[in-house]
């Protein structure tokens, strides 16, 4: 993975500390052109990996990328699925069974419900595989070397102790997409322990890691302990804690932590992209990333 990954929150009005800013972003990025323009700024700053949710609007972005193979020949997308709000709103309206019916293609759903037959575990895993395949359609022809499970689902399964499903996600991504599975989580130490116990070695885990310990469940110390002692490919997100920490201070902290393979950030302007990249490069020069 590249040292710096470019995220998509700003494009879809996700701002963790201000509803006002998220509204402004929603206006700024109304058109796909505006998104592409910002992605091009990121590319100019040397960032070639775009980590994005499987939001409907990514379909249009993928079309542009496919139509311009020369410009985007080194460009990679790390899809993060599912776009949780799509399903959350559907569950609110249709219930869990209704949502599955709405989003799972084919006859599987019908066969599961015939006469209330007992379900075999395989059916649930097939169900999940079909949902992954539906989400992955939009990326056809685009290089997607790492595919992530969004934190809402990772953490839901983690709490439910449905570890087999996490493993099944990992296996399906590997087998069908010849890609690596990554996990986004708000509970990194706990997830690491579960993946390790299930034989997933050197996992790719993306989680909030920042100087003030924001959204680092358990404690900042528990996160630092995992980074210091465990083998994994860790991605730090929310490094600015939504803007609560000044960029230089925030990036210095995270750049100097051991075992952070990549730093994920999103920004709306050329200036902010360039300054974030230059801070990370500066701190990396002062203390190169520690190898595992």
């Amino acid at each position: 993975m590249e040292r710096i990954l470019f995220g998509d929150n700003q494009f879809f009005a996700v701002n963790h500390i201000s509803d006002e800013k998220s509204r402004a972003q929603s206006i700024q990025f109304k058109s796909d052109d505006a998104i592409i323009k910002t992605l091009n700024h990121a590319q100019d700053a040397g960032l070639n990996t775009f980590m994005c949710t499987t939001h409907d609007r990514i379909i249009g972005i993928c079309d542009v990328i496919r139509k311009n193979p020369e410009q985007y020949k080194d460009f990679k997308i790390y899809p993060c699925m599912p776009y949780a709000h799509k399903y959350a709103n559907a569950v609110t309206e249709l219930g869990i069974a209704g949502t599955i019916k709405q989003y799972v293609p084919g006859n599987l759903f019908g066969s599961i419900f015939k006469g209330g037959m007992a379900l075999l575990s395989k059916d649930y895993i097939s169900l999940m595989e079909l949902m992954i395949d539906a989400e992955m359609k939009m990326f056809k022809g685009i290089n997607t070397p790492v595919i992530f499970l969004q934190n809402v689902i990772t953490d839901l399964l983690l709490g439910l102790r449905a570890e087999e499903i996490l493993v099944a996600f990992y296996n399906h991504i590997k087998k069908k997409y010849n890609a690596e599975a990554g996990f986004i989580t708000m509970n990194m130490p706990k997830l690491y322990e579960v993946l390790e116990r299930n034989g997933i070695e050197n996992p790719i885990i993306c989680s909030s890691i920042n100087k003030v310990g924001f959204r680092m469940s358990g404690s900042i110390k528990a996160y630092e302990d995992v980074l210091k002692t465990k083998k994994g490919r860790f991605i730090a997100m929310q490094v600015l804690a939504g803007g609560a920490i000044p960029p230089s201070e925030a990036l210095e902290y995270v750049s100097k932590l051991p075992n952070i393979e990549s730093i994920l950030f999103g920004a709306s302007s050329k200036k902010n992209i360039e300054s974030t990249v230059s801070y990370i490069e500066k701190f990396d020069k002062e203390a190169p990333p520690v190898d595992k």
Partner: protein
Amino acid sequence: MIKVALVGAGKMGVSHLSILGAHPDVEIVGVCDTSKIVTDFLSRYSKMECFSNFQKMLDKITPDAIFVAVPTKFHYEIIKYAIEKNIHVFAEKPFCLNTAQGEELVKLAAKHRIINQVGYHNKFVGTFKEVKRLINSGVIGDVYHFLAESYGPVVTKAKQSSWRSNPDDGGGCLMDYASHVIDLVNDIISPITEVKGATLKSIYSQTVEDAVYAVLETSSKVSGILSVNWSDETYRKMSTTVTIMGTKGKIISDANELKVFVKEDKTGGYTKGWNVKYITDLTDQVNFNLRGEEYSAQVDYFIDAVMKRKPNTINTFENAWETDKAIALIKKHK
């Protein structure tokens, strides 16, 4: 270890189950839901004992506490059954379909001395907690008016088919969405006891309202405007904002950002003029995070109360009953 059972493994129920599953002091002893696809999944992968009938579950297992996350119309029956078995109860919001049921359950809970809580999670959001603290400490002087708003994209087209579209099941924007905001005002200022006027507006729904606009007054004679609309696609997800006017200042707060204007220099970090604080400054660490700290924090608080580590004073049945009463007053203006 606290033995916990859950009735209703839908969106909120499954979320509670996951948080409870990660809780170090909790053992999940039973789950009840009518959907086989859900219970089959939970018994297969989460190794939970599942039931389709809540009475059978409670008769067979003896949990210390139960989480009730079924549509509101079933709350009364299930909560009553649990209390009479001396089981502590966490119920999803809103509390009951009518105030008579709520009153009976408040009294019954007191009689049986069970720990009782309702899932109004805004009380566990750092910014709103700070708003309450500021009002109580008199930072903005005497409060005279509020504006309480909530918007989001739940019903954005005409077709609908769930319990949310049925008024007899506790559907509609007033009970589902506006209840959060009413409950927050009740807690931060004082209970809403009078409705001066209200409009319950259907936008896409045929059978329920999609928006509630009302002029209100609290028991402390503070006036206020309620503006709630669950058919607003300009919001990515539910967004709640309170604006509170006082003789010495003003507070504008949502779940992420708190803006406070004070006329005088005050202690506690607030200086004359505008002050801005973010959720990052106001959030306590939780052990497990699913969808936001507030969901874990409210579950942790309930478990702490059951274990007698904390008082049972936030989001009690009685508080939630006050909210039901305000809902009933607004409904009268239909």
